[in-house]
């Protein structure tokens, strides 16, 4: 339990320091009393944990719906950081998925590309 807590602290710490150091925030607004902070502490930690779990589940499901074998989907989401999971959760459908080799382009896409090539917009065929 200690290990997990400190590990989380460590990782959050590195991330927090990375994001807050350059900004040099100054304190502003109402001070939160210690009592309130204690009440908040558990809730914040819980929310963070819940968000982490939700993002993990959500991305896992999304991958499975896209044809990823469920046995692999779980391992794959486990390999992602919380920040990466959140990005995927929001943008999974739109992010580039590198895959199409040039020999695979057929049909309409090929026609579009030929036109674009002729207009010197792309270099798909002149790559070589």
């Amino acid at each position, binding site marked *: 339990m200690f290990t997990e*807590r400190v590990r989380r*602290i460590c*990782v959050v710490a590195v991330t927090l320091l990375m994001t807050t150091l350059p900004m040099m925030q100054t304190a502003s607004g109402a001070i939160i009393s210690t009592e309130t902070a204690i009440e*908040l502490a558990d809730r914040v930690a819980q929310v963070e944990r819940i968000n982490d779990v939700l993002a993990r589940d959500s991305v896992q499901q999304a991958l499975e719906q896209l044809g990823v074998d469920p046995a*692999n989907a779980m391992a794959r989401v486990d390999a992602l950081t919380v920040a990466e999971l959140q990005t995927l959760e929001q943008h999974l459908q739109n992010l580039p*998925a*590198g895959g199409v080799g040039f020999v*695979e382009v057929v049909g309409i896409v090929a026609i579009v590309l030929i036109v674009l090539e002729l207009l010197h917009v792309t270099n798909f065929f002149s790559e070589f």
Partner: protein
Amino acid sequence: MLTTGCAGNVRVMMSELEQQTKSIELVDTPFYPQITDQCGPSALAAILNVTGVNVTPSVLKSSIYIPDRQGSLQLEMLAATRSYQRIPYTLDPDVKTLVSELQAGRPVLVLQNLGSSFAPVWHYAVVVGYLPDEKRFVLRSGDQERLRVKASTFIRSWRRADYWAFVALKPGTVPDNADVAKYLSALAAFESTGGNANTIAAYEAAVVKWPENTLAQLGLGNAYYAVGQLERAQAVYTSLLRTDQHNAIVLNNLAQVLAEQGAHSNAVQTIDTALSVADIGSPTYRLILQTREEISMQSHAPQER
């Protein structure tokens, strides 16, 4: 993942390339001919094998390929790299950096858009060389083991992918021109998804390269903690506090380590100092409070010393 603003432009990069007069080609980079839409696994297998990881594209496929997207996502390529105990380091978006990685013996995995911005054709390839005489890059790409692409053509296809590229680092290797924030961020990701003794080597290298950097030292202390080397962790945190006495996070971690070694009164004193320097109400403060509660509970346990 793709952002709208891009650094530099094709002409600038071409003029930077003019300064590269020596031919480079990493001929030992393995080649895995791409199967249909699996350029991701092919490319990733190539750069991992160069660092001594014996993995084939068909094994990598289960970690990165998405059938209905007919390809692999960038983030999953990075995650898969970490799972093989290599640190994925995303390059600065410029051709000088790409060439310097080649010079260091590291082939570079790039994302290209071989189409246009409104009809993108995403493709991964591995840059293994640059030939100044021909002004061509050498790529392992698709079913071409040695694809020689005109530099301007390559740069345009790379620009349309926001100049995305990464290398796989062995833990303990730091690129000469590495950006400290980017390196430490990559390392934090490596650590959070299952780092271990390799994390120590990686942080040790960071501390050597950037001795003044607080985060690198904090990371090293944490890495020692993670494998149970509490005394070493304590030594690193203590040393760090000599130059940065009011670092709440380091104080928190030191308190934890002291508590686990049985030095409870010391631990309580340290955690209280942490609380006194942290911003009340900040997420850090809350985390420190949790640590304090646990330390208090532990000090009331029967095995108190």
